[in-house]
Structures are given as C-alpha cells and as structure tokens.
C-alpha cells in the first residue's frame, strides 16, 4: 500500500485537498458503523479518564482523613 506523492502546486493547493490513498481495498466499512464506533470510543476514553480521576481523588481524600484522625492521637501521646 502506498500514498500518493504530495501534489505539486502551491502550499495552499496541496494542503486543502482530500486525496485518496492508492492501493487500498475498494470496499470500506460502512460510514454509520465507523461514526458510531468513533463516538463510543471517544466518550469511553473521556469517561474512563474521569473515573480514574475521581477514584484517585477519593483515595487521596481517604488517606488525608486517616492522617487527620491520627494527628490528635499523636499530640495526645
């Protein structure tokens, strides 16, 4: 599989065109399936990132709570 060489002409010309890749399969997947897959994956990444963030923040808060509870004991001792 190879790409077309960048077209000659001005920088603007060659940067503004959608140009097909040669040698690729002529049949491509359905646009609907690709569109839905892209949206689902993008939102999954975002949700996963948010989930990890909140989980780590909860762990930090829990540990801070433990330290705060331990402080009076230390000062008592």
């Amino acid at each position, binding site marked *: 599989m190879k790409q077309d060489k960048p077209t000659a002409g001005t920088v603007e010309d060659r940067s503004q065109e959608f140009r097909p890749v040669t040698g690729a399969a002529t049949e491509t997947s359905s646009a609907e399936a690709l569109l839905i897959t892209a949206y689902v994956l993008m939102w999954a*990444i975002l949700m996963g990132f948010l989930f990890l963030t909140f989980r780590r923040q909860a762990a930090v808060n829990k540990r801070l709570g433990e330290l705060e509870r331990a402080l009076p004991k230390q000062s008592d001792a």
Partner: protein
Amino acid sequence: MVLGMRPRGLIVGVWAVTALTFFALILFVFLKVPEAQPQAGGLAQKIFYFHVPAAYALYLCGGVCFVGSALYLANPTDLRDAWAKAGAECASAFGGMVMVSGPLWAKKAWGVYWTWDPRLTSLLLSILIYVALVVLRRFAGTGDAERRFAAAFGILGTAVLPIVHYSVQLWGGNHPKVLKANGGGGLQDPAMVQALLAGFFAMTLLAALLLTLRAQLAHSQARLLRAEELTPDTNG
C-alpha cells in the same frame, strides 16, 4: 479548597453548561448538519466535529503543560508541578480521543485506518511524548530531579505541537486542512461551521474542567506525600 481557587458553584455550573453543550451538539450534528461529500468520508465526516476540537484541546493542554513546566523550572513549587502534570495527563487523554476517531474517519475517506502522513506521524510522536511523561510521573518517583526532568520533557512535548500544526502546510500529505479549505476538506455549509465552533467551545470547557480536576488531584497528592513524610508512623 486545594488550589485556593475553587468556587464549587462555578465548577458545577461549568460542568452543567459543558454537558448541555455536548448534548445539544450531538443532536445538532446528527439532525441538522448535512452529510459531507463522499471524498470527505460522507456520513463519517461527522466524526470531525469532535475530532478536530479534541485535537485543539490537546494543543490547549499541551500549552498548560508547557507553561507549568517552564514556571516549575524557573521556580519550583508543588502547584506549578501539578499544572504541568495535569497538562500532560489531559493532553494524553485528548490525544487518545484524536487517535481513535481520526483513523475511523480515514478508513472511510482514504480506505485505510492509518498512513504515515506527516500530520499523523508528528501527532503520534507528540502524543507518545505526553504518554511517556505520564508514565514517567507515575513510576519514576516524586523527587525534585524527577520533577525537573519531567518538566523538561513536557517542554519538549509541547515544542513538537507547532510542527504537528504546520505539518500539512509544510509537507502536504493526505491529511486535509479543515478550517480554511476550499477543496474537499472545506466546510461548505453554515451548519457545518456552526457545529465545529460549538465543538471548540464545548471542548474548551471540558479541557478547563479536566485540567482543574487533574491539577487539584496532583496538588493533593503532593501535599499528602509531604504530610506522610512528616508523620511516617501513620502509614498503612
């Protein structure tokens, strides 16, 4: 109030506006925005209304990483380090969104998921730098030397972004220039432009929220580490 700048009502309000904007944008993109021409991927071109703003958000987070890293190198503080770390983490997340959505559009428009086009290759390099930075921060310790190395790495990662942005103009390739295009990559319907602008607005809000959350988390972790150093017998 870890960062000293977190009015809770404002944060909740921004979350609400962001969620509503995304919801409205999805409806608008699917119900009102017309399909693009077949060379642009037809229906699959609607991926662009989130793909391009996600790439812009990556630039934004890379910029935050750059500023945080540069400020940390100039005068190290936990807060500056937290913003640098948050910038790299959010840039990696948005980079992931760009990297999964772009190839799915390319499969329809170009017939392949991936090609070693200058824009794609330089963007992949940039995202890998941010991912490496996140891995480094996670596993390489939290000493000043590690933080300084990470800051230098963060500056390097963001220095690649202008190359990513101008790669299409510099070297051509298959990737279209979306915003000012007259040819196959142009947005020829006003609704397309409106959707893209709304996408930029929503992604800006999302990036700001994620950056704030991650910077707050990184700052909390740094403070926790210092507190644990002062009270070692409470570990466990």
